[in-house]
């Protein structure tokens, strides 16, 4: 079973190298969906892992949807890719890396501090400080 799966994965990886997923956007709708686009993994623990990962990956053809809830064929392909890699024993973070190398950081919803995203983390911290300061001034200062 494992061997068969890894053969499939290997074939897919080779195929993916020959024809990057991003390119054949046309006529994709007529192809049958990728094997695990609409099929869960048999092992519930693995499926849960895949599901958690899919919910944090962006569907690149949609507006603000993860690949876990999109009908776009590209999202289906990515779901299949994620499930097969999980089944092959890859760690979710390795799969995320692989997808980010391919499609850029944009594909991941998971917040990570980097030189382009630091304001997203500094912002709430500043808000926290402001909130604390405002409350201190309004409520803390004059308890007498």
């Amino acid at each position: 079973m494992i061997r068969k799966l890894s053969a499939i994965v290997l074939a897919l990886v080779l195929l993916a190298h020959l024809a990057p997923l991003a390119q054949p956007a046309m006529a994709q709708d007529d192809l049958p969906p990728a094997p695990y686009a609409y099929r869960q993994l048999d092992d519930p623990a693995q499926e849960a892992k895949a599901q958690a990962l899919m919910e944090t990956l962006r569907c690149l053809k949609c507006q603000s949807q993860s690949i876990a809830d999109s009908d776009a064929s590209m999202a289906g392909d990515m779901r299949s890719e994620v499930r097969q890699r999980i089944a092959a024993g890859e760690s979710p973070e390795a799969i995320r890396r692989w997808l980010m190398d391919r499609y850029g950081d944009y594909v991941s919803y998971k917040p990570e501090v980097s030189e382009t995203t630091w304001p997203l983390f500094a912002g709430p911290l500043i808000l926290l400080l402001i909130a604390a300061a405002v409350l201190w001034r309004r409520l803390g200062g004059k308890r007498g």
Partner: protein
Amino acid sequence: MIAELGLAALWLAAALAVLQLVFGTIFTFKSAEKAEFSQIVRPAAAMQGVLCALSFLILTWLFARTDLSVKLVAMNSHSMKPMIFKIAGTWGNHEGSMLLWVTVMAMAGALIALIERRLPERTMMATLAAQAFVGLGFYAFLLFSSNPFERLDPPALEGMGLNPLLQDIGLAFHPPTLYFGYVGLSVAFSFAVGALLTRQVTPDFARAMRPWVLGAWIFLTVGITAGSYWAYYELGWGGWWFWDPVENASLMPWLAATALLHSVSVLAARDALRAWTIMLGVVAFSMSMVGTFLVRSGILTSVHAFAVDPERGSFLLALLAIYIGGALLVFAVRAGSVTEGERFSLVSREGALVVNNVMLSAILGVVLLGTLYPLLTEAFDVRVSVGPPYFNPVSAIFALPMLLVMAVGPLLRWRHDNAKRIRPELILIAVLGLVTLAGVVAFAGIAVLPTLGIALAVVVIVASVMPLRGRKLRLLPLATWGMVIAHLGIGVSLLGMASETAFTQEKLAAVKVGDTTQVGPWTIKLDRIDPVAGPNWTALEGVLEASYRGGKPVIIDPQSRNFWSPPQETNESALITRWNGQLYAVLGREAGEGRWQLRLWWKPLVTLIWIGGMMVALGGALALIGRVYTDLRRRRVMRKAVERRSEASA
């Protein structure tokens, strides 16, 4: 000819707004010399409402008749559409929706001009001048860059708007609901500016402003709740909130309005939080302008597309800058002279409300940052994704303590209280919360946020009905009922969200006709696949027999539809609602060897999300009715007293 009449009415209304602005402003600053100027402002506001209503009715008439010599109708309607969608089509497009906005705003202005008599005349004139100022921006926007009455010569032979996906009754009434909310906040903004200009930030001002804030807040609540349910059943994957910028565009004004609503109540009841209320009034309207800008400028589809055709977006952005900048400027100049009002201690109802206003503002800041930041970076060609994994935990940092304070706050007394007085209640709440927490951790083993969510929901639900203890329920003011029900609704909704997040079970299966599959407690048999046809679509319909824990089977029939003009494939989900959750079924494609793809979810307690949302809106409505009723009664008593006094002196 009719279209030109509509346009003329709009121009006239704009001219009256200029009059209202000029005379209102002069009166505000030179009321001693120009007392007669106030005679002109109120009629000008009232007439504007009439003219805008006329203009909007004319556009509706043009749509109902499908007058194809009007460009807007030709672009967006079709002679074969059902009448209800022809009419709803009036505001289903950019120009029409902006005309609706202006109309609602002008009618709101007319209403305050005609009935609001409690405030000092100067404050009233300043308010109406501010209202005219805001209105003028939108008149200019309509007349110069989005004229809905533009003609088409020669007329089109047929309209272009038969898109079946847009013929949805929910979609037809969702945007106006949000617009009513936005406009209500614009009135609150005008009141705030008016009071700031004349330094009359009084409880009377708060009472005049409150119905508008409440009304706006009710519409926003209903709009958000309905929009969430629409996304849930329409998108076919069972998601109910995506932190999409369009959703955030309605959430941000709601957060600000919620804070404003509580602040204005403190001002009305206790004459405290004056500057705070004014500030929140400015913020709330700013957020509705940001929302309008996000939705209407086209910036969301792509920052670059926006940069290529920036006319509308720039116009809205300029309006945004003028209003917010102007208001903040007035605030900066005047805020120093507006005192904070009555003092109160930390442990008091006001204290709890201040904590929560700060928390709501912080959540608003997080949502604003997460929504605008990706747009900002995209302008520099860096694409950043901000989604649920960011918004959920970061907003929870502020939302969780806020909900705790919300549970306790209504039990406290105004001004000054002692925590010892409500010790039994606090102990009960704490024990309940901790027991639930322990129970969920021990038996369910779910993620951190839903675990905390369930415990907090139980706390909020129990605590929110505690203000009723020991009170005569029949004598309880309607507004108090409103508060209890709205807070209860928050708890109920939270329970639904946490439960859906934690306990949803998913099953994707390829099923042969006649075979069964399982999802959660449900057994589902694919009975047959039927071809069906509608007026502009064909579909495959899966007939499913669903039985809950081996009970009597219920038939549901999800469809996979193909529209032909324009060609598009959609999934019509099918739902079974039980008291304890919903079964959600979607029919996918054929999977070969006579098998069909089924997507099935069992979502425990999911319906509580929207039931809670509607309870929140209902609470708001009760409070609004209660407040207006009390106001009217007070006014009648005052009038009687004045009459008696004049009789006595005569």
